[in-house]
């Protein structure tokens, strides 16, 4: 074998070796990522697990059906929205009547109510069905307040609709 080729190959091998070694050394010199420094605590630990796996990400993206609400007689159309701005209204879909007169949010039931007119609510693409109804409620001043209820048709769970004070005022203020 030609001597110059041998030297070239040897230099190449040495170069590769040096490249790997430098890479590892630099890695070692950089060290682990920085962590908050805690002194004097009784216990310090990490309880973090991995970020959602691809499956969960898919699942998260799949929980989408946004309920579209339509009265069965077609006289009124409602849409359910989740509040975008009010953190206090967590998990409280807003209900806006098509005439804009009312905006209400879902809240847990305070008591059981007797069902009256029941507009059907169907989640788009999910087959889920809800029933909305409005029933009278005696207000503090003796006024009758409309208070729609939402009843899940399959399970019979009932969630009352009542205006969370701040949110309703906020929504009315927008109109």
């Amino acid at each position: 074998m030609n001597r110059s080729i041998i030297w070239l190959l040897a230099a190449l091998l040495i170069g590769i070796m040096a490249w790997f070694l430098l890479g590892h050394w630099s890695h070692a010199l950089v060290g682990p990522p920085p962590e908050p420094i805690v002194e004097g605590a009784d216990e310090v630990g990490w309880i973090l697990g991995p970020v959602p796996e691809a499956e969960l990400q898919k699942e998260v993206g799949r929980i989408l059906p946004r309920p579209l609400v339509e009265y069965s007689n077609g006289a009124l159309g409602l849409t359910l929205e989740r509040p975008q701005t009010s953190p206090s209204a967590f998990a409280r879909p807003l209900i806006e009547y098509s005439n804009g007169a009312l905006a209400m949010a879902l809240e847990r039931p305070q008591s059981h109510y007797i069902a009256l007119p029941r507009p059907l609510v169907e989640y788009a693409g999910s087959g889920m069905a809800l029933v909305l109804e409005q029933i009278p409620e005696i207000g503090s001043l003796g006024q009758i307040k409309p208070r729609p209820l939402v009843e899940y048709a399959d399970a019979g769970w009932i969630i009352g609709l009542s205006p969370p004070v701040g949110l309703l005022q906020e929504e009315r203020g927008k109109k």
Partner: protein
Amino acid sequence: MKIKHLTAIGFLVVGILLLNPFEWDRTGDNNGILLETPSFIALAAEAQTPQKGVNFLQQEAGISAYVKLDQAIDLKTIKGTFKTIETVSDQYIIGEMALPNLPDYADPHVYVNKEGWIVAYYSNSEPASKIVQWIGYSGGVMPRATLEDAIRQIFDILRRTAAIPFPSVHYYDFEYPAANRIMVATKLSSQNGGTETFYLTIPQGVRLFEASWSFYHTGSGVGRVGMDGTWLAKYTRQLFYGDVTSKIKVQFKHSFQLWNNESSGTSYLAVILIYQTGQ
């Protein structure tokens, strides 16, 4: 140089690479885990539907714990474990779950779907320190997490009908998708009138998203939580939370004080940090 020499050099190189003596374990110790950042933006874009669909977890959830069981979940069997039902379909249930011996404001939300996913979470408007489960804690090993307890309540129901192993629980903060670490530092004080202190420094290179705390008092007295020598408040409630994210400065040695004024009771303090490092 002969072929023998070349072969020797070759073996040397391969040997060094195989032995890899300089590799640094970047996962470190103490359960530290370096994680990938999920592509939530792309996911959300993909998830958009003509119905203006939104992702409730991304919109509403903050700190979360989740498991994936290797079996389907019959939603009817577990719906009774919920304190309140917020949303339900033939595919999933979302509701609040009461935890034993904890007040209402500690209730986590839980999402369960029939394919085996269980996600327990607090809303993004709540401090992540709500995950600290003080009930049953007496010092030493880190407290459990309330979110894991919520998942276990679902799991216990399921285990009545099937012998399934409890899967490992993973954590994630939907409010801060870039966060890859959560640190919990705890301190307890059982001395009447005694003040305990610990210190926290956020170094350069750590991107802090949230610093919140959880206070718990076992007796009928009061306790106080302080930061940098100033009392944040005096708490007579058994369990209290707070957020001090805006008070944290990088490369500053902050102090946290815990004051207990009852000889028969113990006060506990945990500071939770949600942050990103190593990326």
